[in-house]
């Protein structure tokens, strides 16, 4: 099953809405709390990144019996150095964004921590795609 949500960059008041909507779906599916918590945290961080750093984006969540795949595609500046972006504490967030309580530089690292696999591809000047997979059962 697929769930699809659009997000607009800069709209901080709505940041988190997609994560909340997906949280409700995971509740309907009775997914174990420890698993759904990880999914929602990772998704929230990805959502906030589009709001904070890109112009617009789409989140697609694919659910099957085994796993939950999240694909976050955005149009935006892209990431020049992915390795550096992944570092805890690295952030290019503007002072205004920081003022709003975002931009601690932990987002990407948290997404990695809270998913079973994470893939980032980015074309500077065009946009970024982040793909996350979380297995419902512990996976070898």
């Amino acid at each position, binding site marked *: *099953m697929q769930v699809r949500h659009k997000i607009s960059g800069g709209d901080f008041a709505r940041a*988190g809405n997609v*994560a*909340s909507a997906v949280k*409700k*779906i995971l*509740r*309907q*599916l*009775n997914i174990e*709390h420890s698993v*759904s*918590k990880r999914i*929602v*945290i990772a998704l*929230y961080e990805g959502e906030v990144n589009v709001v904070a750093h890109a112009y617009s984006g789409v989140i697609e969540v694919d*659910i*099957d*019996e085994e796993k939950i795949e999240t694909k976050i595609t955005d149009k935006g500046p892209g990431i020049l150095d992915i390795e550096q972006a992944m570092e805890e504490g690295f952030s290019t967030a503007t002072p205004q964004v920081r003022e709003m309580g975002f931009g601690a530089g932990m987002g990407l690292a948290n997404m990695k921590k809270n998913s079973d696999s994470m893939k980032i591809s980015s074309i500077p000047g065009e946009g970024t795609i982040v793909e996350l997979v979380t297995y*419902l059962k512990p996976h070898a």
Partner: protein
Amino acid sequence: MHDKNQNRDFHHALTVHNDLCIGCTHCMTVCPTQAIRVRNGKAIITANRCVDCGECYKACPVSAIVVEQDDLEMIFKFPVRVILIPSVLIGQFPKKIMTSSIYNALKEIGFTHIYEVENTVDMVLEAGRQYMHEQKERPMISSYCPAIVRLIQVKYPSLIGNIMKVNPPIDMSAMYYREKLKMSGIPEDQIGLFYATPCAAKIAAVKSPVGEIESAVTGVININFLYNRILKFLQRKYTESKPPETDDLLSSRGILWSLTRGEVIHSNGRALAIDGIKNVNEFLENIENEKLDQIDFLELRACDESCAGGILISGNRFLTVERLKNRAEEYKAREDDKNRKLTDGFLNINEHGFLGDIGPRPMAKLDEDFSAALKKLERQRRIMCFLPGFDCGGCGAPDCQTLSEDIVQGNGQISQCIFMQHQMIKQNVLSQSQAVRITDKIWGEGRLEKNCNKLGAEDENN
């Protein structure tokens, strides 16, 4: 094991009086857990979704939702008749009425021993501190309001581990006074311990406690009923007899406990107090897990202004809060306020302080089996593509999404929606007479006939 509470039937103190119910949907739309449907023109409460918050009771325009209570006559089966009164009972009376007069009235009504529920709050505090120290889960959510505990069980089962499993003051006090009276030589079967309740949630909690084997409370008497009785006694002259048994343990902490922030003021860490079940729902629904982790303590209460706004409180809730705050100030000024607490050892924190297991009863779950749940979810979302999203209640369910859930659970059909009927008639897949039959089944025959007795109509007062 994990779902052990799920199939147990939950006691609810609220019931719909079918003869009075006019099937108006007011209750259905306000219920925070979508527990109400209309069938045959009458509201029906689904037991495993209801959390006893009383929103439906407040919303009913014809008082068709009633709160059960034990018969007052029942108290006379016991030679020793204790009434435990919460501070919000006294808070309803104007200041000029002395507490002792209220106590005397309660004695006239038939009680032999009168104690305040909040006499044990310092024990609750101590148990809470111990619990916070031992359990690292954050935030800890107060177990004080039973409607909130139930809301978490049915709607936010992932937060069950965050409930602070400490006995609330009513249970601590019931155990304490029962023990104390027993130790004074009164046989247990001669002690009747009654609780003057401000709400339906507390009744349900006494009748089917979560996380506790059995309540020490014998029965419940509704505060509004007692309030009227007390008023009657205060209005007539009566010869003052021997004052009832009581003790003098109430502190400013106890007076404030049941009001909003009554618990939070004792918290050392980061704590929030939220009252009103709508606010609580919105908060729990939208806060990110991460941000929630950074809060140490949550005091969540179902009623606006907490227990001063309980559905059985007749007095104005804002005035009740004001009076209690003034009363607390007076107590605080007393030298012994800090030392007003139990010291006699009849209550032991390790033995009496904590609640047992609280199980989840997730209402959102579409199926036990994951692939079945996934199929139902897909179907439910497809059905939502067709329903108009008006949330009008015309189908007998509170909103379109709930109807779609009912349908996939086999408890409803898409043709219940009056706008779907319109579409289906246009497409020749439903006949007019079928549509009429479906709608009559929901609203009852005759419900849609002309009737001028409703609010705003020609004969609204008849």
